[in-house]
């Protein structure tokens, strides 16, 4: 940008955009402002910021009470376990699978690649009932590993699609060199290929982490009523218990939202690159 000076037009444009952004961010202002109000402040002056004496007690309430999970605090931990578990499994399984598909150039591997793309486009909704039945039979309902497997398998086609695109563009020389040095297949993969995949792994981990962290539909079907429900599940029960007590509800919503928002602000670049470029493959 360097020596950027406002002309009257660019100044107006800037002001207009800032106003638009303020309007756009209004719901987030209410979220934070109301979550820090007492019941009385909420009825008397709902629009004002509670700068004088913020009511942090709402957060304590939301953190420790509500739902079968026993509060947003426990749900926070559950969500963290499930998200990390799913992302790790997904990255391992999808990178290995994509590595084989990308490096074997047979008709079979091309066919499989097409199957992965089809699996990525088609919604998995129709499979819900059979999956539910199988998981109920196998005792996987409301378990950490059950939902982790579900998320891994669910996001897999997308992740494989991203990985294959990336690996195909990667030169094979490094792997050949490792093998000449006597490294086995798995050793080559973990010591040589995985480090080379770092940029796309970041994208896959970000996008899948986002999906799993925010997932409500699968958690609702496979985790609700259990003590290991995720944040959206706990938030949903918390809202049902404190209906129209917006200060409490918003404290709960903030707990559900804040971690992702922080990660986003810190790792903005990766998110933008992932969501803009990653989708393109």
């Amino acid at each position, binding site marked *: *940008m360097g020596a*950027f000076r406002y002309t009257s037009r*660019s100044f107006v*444009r*800037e002001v207009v*955009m*800032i106003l638009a*952004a303020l309007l*756009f961010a209004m*719901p*987030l202002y*209410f979220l934070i402002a109301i979550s820090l109000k007492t019941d009385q402040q909420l009825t008397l002056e709902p*629009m004002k910021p509670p700068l004088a004496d913020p009511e942090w007690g709402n957060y304590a309430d939301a953190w420790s009470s509500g739902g079968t999970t026993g509060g947003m605090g426990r749900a926070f931990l559950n969500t963290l376990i499930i998200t990390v578990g799913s992302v790790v499994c997904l990255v391992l*399984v999808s990178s*290995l699978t*994509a590595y*084989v*598909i990308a490096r074997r150039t047979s008709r079979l591997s091309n066919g*499989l690649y097409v*199957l992965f793309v*089809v*699996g990525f*486009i*088609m919604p*998995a909704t*129709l*499979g*819900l*009932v*059979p999956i*539910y039945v199988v998981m109920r039979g196998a005792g996987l309902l409301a378990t950490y590993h059950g939902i982790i497997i579900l998320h*891994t*398998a*669910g996001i*897999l086609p997308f992740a*494989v699609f991203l990985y294959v695109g990336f690996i195909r563009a990667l030169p094979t020389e490094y*792997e*050949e060199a490792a093998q000449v040095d*006597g490294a*086995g*297949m*798995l050793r080559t993969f973990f010591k040589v290929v995985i480090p080379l995949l770092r940029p796309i792994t970041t994208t896959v981990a970000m996008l899948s982490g*986002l999906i799993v962290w*925010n997932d*409500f*539909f699968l958690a609702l*079907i496979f985790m609700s009523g259990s003590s290991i429900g995720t944040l959206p599940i706990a*938030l*949903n029960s918390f809202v049902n218990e404190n209906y129209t007590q*917006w200060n409490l509800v918003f404290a709960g*919503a903030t707990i*559900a*939202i804040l971690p*992702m*928002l922080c990660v986003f602000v810190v790792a*903005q670049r990766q*998110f*933008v690159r992932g969501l*803009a*470029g990653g989708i393109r493959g």
Partner: protein
Amino acid sequence: MTERTTKKKHADTSALPPLVVAGGPGGEDEGPGAVRWWRPRWLTGRNSGPAGGARKPPWFLAMLGIAFLIGMHFLAPLSGGVYAFTDWDGFNTATFIGWDNFREIMDSSVQRGALLHTFVLAGSYLVLVNVVGLVLALALNRTLKSRNFLRMVFFAPAVLSPLAVSYIWQYMFTYDGAINRMLGGIGLDGLRREWLGDPSTAIWCVLVVMVWQHAGQAMIIYLAGLQGVADELEEAAVIDGARLWMRLRRITLPLLAPAFTIVSTLMLISGLRVFDQVFALTGGGPVYSTETLATQVYQQTFVEGRFGFGASIAMVMTVLISILGIANMMYQRSRERRL
């Protein structure tokens, strides 16, 4: 000296009876005398023939991924397709009832409504999210001092839990909520209403929340596309005296065609599957005015316990998404080619 000993040892080994096993994924040196256990090529990933290059990774490394794919994305939907023709309740034996479930979908006003609302929501979402995203991208592509911060503000909602976001908006839409207060503040008291409680406005509230949350995502995809639009091209057009609208139509928009394809495909599919927002904002009400296919799949299957009927709605949804998704992609492709 050392070399000779090694050689000698090697010769000794090969003279021994065939006990040494070479091969396997290690890829050791194989003397002519070594015995190789037969292993299928798909297992070891070894290339036959003298053509060098890296050995191909063995298929078994991909087995888990392939099993997940086949299980979750092909076998499960296929058997779900079978359930769609039964009256299964999740526990008792299922009876095959032909097309009855689908007939019920067509006869029931709730299901027909769900189908209609899904179309209306997805269609208007597709249009609005594209328009808002594109306008934001064009506005923030320019040299504004605050553009990076503004981009972050507009994009942030896309990373938040749709459920939590919907609860925030539920407050915004209540009678005492922010929207009505703001309307009152600018002297439009007459417009105050219970936005989510009115069957004629509730669905548009859902739409507002969907667009608010994802317009920023469309924006960053368009911004990425705009980076490809060369400044020189724009400048040349400016020098030629092309007006803003002309420049936009002749240069910017055609170059954004690939971004348009991505945004449209993405948003069409997510619009057809909308669940969280409806669930949190209205629960499908009032009087079924916001039911969508996804909320009905959930309701019928997991609340009412009608597994067969739920599967048939899921099937309608799957067929719809596949057809519209593919049609959209083909249309976009041909459009991109024409431009």
